[in-house]
């Protein structure tokens, strides 16, 4: 048999191997380490190497895009030598980045040419008032209004009694030289937020909050309104979780006794905890925060504002209010300037709230004529299908599993969360990637998707999600909750127990993915546009920084399409709230999005249950919908 030379960039001498030798085997002879977390099955893509020159044959290019192959990449475990070749083995971190780059959520950035003063509803103006005298007997408030009118042309301004009470001393102590912060309002008259001595105001920060109140996760961004930049980001579990995991149980809780005000206190408390921490770290006072734009699903909005949400749950599922007015902060209870404004973004219907209208804006779906599928994966999965011309939307209850709740070792995407998993097809041993390269503490949403996909493709799970207990591996065992798979042993994990995934967890995850996929299916069927027509699939939600699209397709969460059609956007709800906070025009656009969407109520649709049970399988009862998974399984 012909013998060829394989030259590795990092190795001085070429290695002589027979034709047909796998690149991994050649590398091993040269003592070069090539990662193979999937056990050399060509599934994980982490053994990608660059073929600089020479003839090779790629048996499989799964995980490599056509562009990758064009650039000379090949999977070392699937590629054989057919001539003298030169190979570069890239450092692991390069491979890692290449594999996930396309799927990492972009950071929030200011729009091009953004002008803070022009775009925002908040304005701060410096005013030099004429001091009163025996000849000029105008009252303090009138004097302030006159100065404002002269400086800005604004005729009327609303204020609170509290502002009036503090006004006299401020004016006199500042030598009648003050800075006025006010909200321009949308259609009505402006509202005074703060009067400060001008000297003090020049130094003072001017801040806003973008808040996304999710059923499971609450996110808060602190924004410097002087520049429009995001200065801090925080998110944590909604403290209401202890009173029910989904919106329905929260609504029921709210309708009993003081449940409503208790839930309100809990969510306000969740927000304020984060705001307090951010204020301390950013060295600002809550009074410096003058505006909060809030997004969230309809139930969460109602609970936050203390509006009884009961009718959301009952047929015909009507919200008390979709287009909420802006309200004074003191009435909401958020830790910010009491006279600041809280601007709740508008929703569409009971189960399609401001999180979606804000998300649609943030996703850019409205700006493109291309047919686009936008999905926000949270405790409720909301789906929008459409383009700049039309939009239909629906919501399905997915449960909190993809946010790491309702799963025994689930957690949010923080340091210590397992976010990517590969399982060796022959030993069933997992390899993990953990956020922050820390010891694993739990598994976040993207990790759970990867875990289920890998367990399925390596035969640890059957198509119904049953753990195959006949496998010869200590990883599969019977635990307190039935069969389980050990993802990390206690000694590798930070805690004193093994990190496992149980049959119950898997059922929760399968139900969540089935609900979301069924939503896609029913929505597409209802408008008569096949899912494959979607040119872009935009994914928002609380998946942390990324989601492995391939693995999400493997488990049947996302429709089987070319990977380059998918884009991961991160938390689009808070992003939309942020953009609305810093730009009035965006706020108006979100209102028009809310009015333009056609809402489809799935509970009134018999086909949903059918679509749901057929999706309650890996990847789906109808395997022909997932040809790439079918190919990967054989």
């Amino acid at each position, binding site marked *: 048999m012909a013998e060829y030379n394989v030259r590795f960039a990092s190795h001085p001498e070429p290695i002589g191997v027979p034709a047909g030798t796998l690149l991994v085997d050649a590398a091993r002879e040269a003592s070069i380490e090539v990662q193979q977390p999937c056990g050399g099955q060509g599934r994980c893509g982490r053994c990608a190497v660059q073929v600089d020159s020479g003839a090779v044959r790629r048996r499989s290019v799964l995980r490599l895009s056509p562009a990758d192959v064009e650039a000379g990449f090949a999977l070392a475990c699937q590629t054989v030598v057919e001539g003298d070749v030169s190979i570069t083995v890239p450092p692991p971190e390069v491979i890692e980045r290449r594999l996930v780059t396309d799927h990492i959520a972009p950071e929030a950035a200011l729009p091009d040419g953004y002008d803070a003063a022009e775009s925002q509803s908040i304005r701060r103006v410096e005013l030099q008032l004429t001091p009163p005298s025996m000849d000029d007997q105008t009252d303090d408030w009138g004097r302030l209004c006159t100065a404002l009118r002269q400086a800005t042309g604004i005729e009327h301004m609303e204020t609170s009694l509290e502002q009036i009470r503090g006004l006299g001393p401020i004016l006199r102590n500042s030598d009648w030289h003050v800075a006025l912060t006010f909200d321009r309002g949308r259609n009505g008259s402006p509202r005074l937020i703060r009067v400060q001595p001008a000297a003090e105001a020049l130094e003072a920060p001017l801040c806003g909050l973008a808040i996304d109140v999710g059923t499971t996760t609450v996110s808060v961004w602190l924004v410097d309104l002087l520049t429009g930049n995001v200065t801090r980001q925080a998110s944590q579990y909604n403290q209401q979780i202890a009173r029910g995991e989904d919106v329905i149980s929260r609504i029921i809780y709210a309708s009993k006794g003081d449940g409503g005000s208790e839930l309100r206190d809990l969510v306000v408390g969740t927000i304020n905890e984060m705001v307090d921490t951010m204020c301390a770290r950013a060295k600002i006072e809550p009074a410096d925060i003058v505006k909060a734009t809030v997004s969230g699903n309809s139930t969460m909005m109602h609970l936050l504002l203390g509006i009884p949400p009961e009718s959301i749950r009952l047929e015909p599922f009507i919200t008390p209010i979709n287009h909420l007015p802006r309200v004074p902060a003191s009435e909401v209870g958020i830790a910010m300037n009491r006279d600041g404004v809280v601007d709740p973004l508008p929703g569409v219907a009971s189960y399609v709230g401001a999180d979606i209208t804000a998300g649609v804006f943030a996703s850019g779906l409205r700006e493109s004529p291309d047919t686009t599928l936008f999905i926000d994966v949270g405790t409720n999965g909301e789906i929008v299908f459409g383009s700049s011309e039309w939009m239909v939307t629906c919501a399905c209850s997915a449960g909190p599993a993809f946010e790491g709740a309702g799963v025994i070792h689930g957690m949010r995407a923080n340091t210590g969360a397992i976010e990517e998993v590969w399982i060796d097809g022959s030993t069933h041993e997992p390899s993990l990637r953990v956020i922050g390269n820390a010891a694993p503490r739990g598994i976040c949403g993207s990790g759970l998707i990867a875990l289920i996909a890998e367990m399925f493709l390596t035969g640890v799970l059957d*198509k119904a999600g*049953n753990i195959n207990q006949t496998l010869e591996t200590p990883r599969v065992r019977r635990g307190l909750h039935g069969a389980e798979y050990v993802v990390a042993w206690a000694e590798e994990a930070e805690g004193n127990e093994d990190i496992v995934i149980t049959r119950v967890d898997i059922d929760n995850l399968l139900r969540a993915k089935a609900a979301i996929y069924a939503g896609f299916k029913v929505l597409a069927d209802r408008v008569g546009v096949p899912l494959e027509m979607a040119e872009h699939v935009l994914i928002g939600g609380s998946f942390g920084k990324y989601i492995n699209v391939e693995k999400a397709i493997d488990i049947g969460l996302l429709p089987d399409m070319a990977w380059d059609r998918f884009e991961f956007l991160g938390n689009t709800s808070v992003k939309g709230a942020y953009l609305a906070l810093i730009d009035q025009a965006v706020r108006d656009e979100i209102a028009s999005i809310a009015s333009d969407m056609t809402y489809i109520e799935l509970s009134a649709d018999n086909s949903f249950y*059918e679509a749901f049970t*057929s999706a*309650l399988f890996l990847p789906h*009862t109808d395997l022909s919908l997932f040809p790439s998974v079918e190919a990967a399984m054989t």
Partner: protein
Amino acid sequence: MSIEIPVDKWPGTVNTVTLGATEADGGTRAKVVTIGGEQSLPFMHFETEMPHSPVIALEMTPSRTDDWSQILLDAWGDVVEDPARWAAAIEAAGADVIVVTFGLTDPAGDPITPDYAVSTVKAVLEASGLPLVVLGPGQADVDNELIVPVADSTKGERLVLGLCEDGNYRTIVASAMANDHLVVGRTPMDVNLAKQLNILMTDMGLPLDRIVMDPTTGGLGYGIEYGYSVMERLRLAALQGDAMTQLPMLVTPGYEAWRTKEAKVGEGVPETWGDWADRGVHWETLTAVSLVEAGADVVVLRHPESLKRVREAIDELMTAAPA
């Protein structure tokens, strides 16, 4: 005036499955039963011939009969105390298939043992030449514990073993594969769940012609319309060519009918309900005949009189000539 009856041509065919094996085929059965093969909806003889008539099984239990209606016990008499004699009586009554359903305990009330299960099944095989369906009590661990030794000790008989369910099918399917038996999978009245279990079982390598499915039904007045509709939809999917729904269907109208209040209770009911025994048999017969019309290939009954009536109905349906 002549009316042209529209004739549907379907692309799919229901699998043909043979229950039991004669000596020539490695078993001991005097008679085997072949079901399935339909190419159109039930009894649409003007479209295609129905190659095999629906068959009737009678059910017996080698366990305590506490939950069997007194009417049934009276009808069978003292044979219920001896599985072999009960099996012989079932064959004498004219059944096509015998279903042996184990409960959790033996007649003495002690937990059932694998040895008891094996000896009982062997005694039944000895006493009757009919094909057998052998079902565990429906509790995963006990089912596996009983069915595996039964399968091992009756290799080649082409027994139908069950119940396979989505969370518990591996063990039974594996032992059926190893011993040339068949399996029956039960799913709770849902087209997709039925299809999914069939996929799981065939994924293990069991050929489709060795599986029958029980899509679960309800008794008359207790959800039969739901069960009927699921069976009808499964059959329509099968005829449209969906391989994972092309399995013959086995349903248990006997069990379902005899647990209804109308069949079970003789006292303290309105007089207008009529004679208790009659009522029970009517209930079972009507449930079973409805399911035959929905596409059932095997109906499992409990009362010998119901068997006669359902047989009569099937015979009529099978011979009904096109107008």
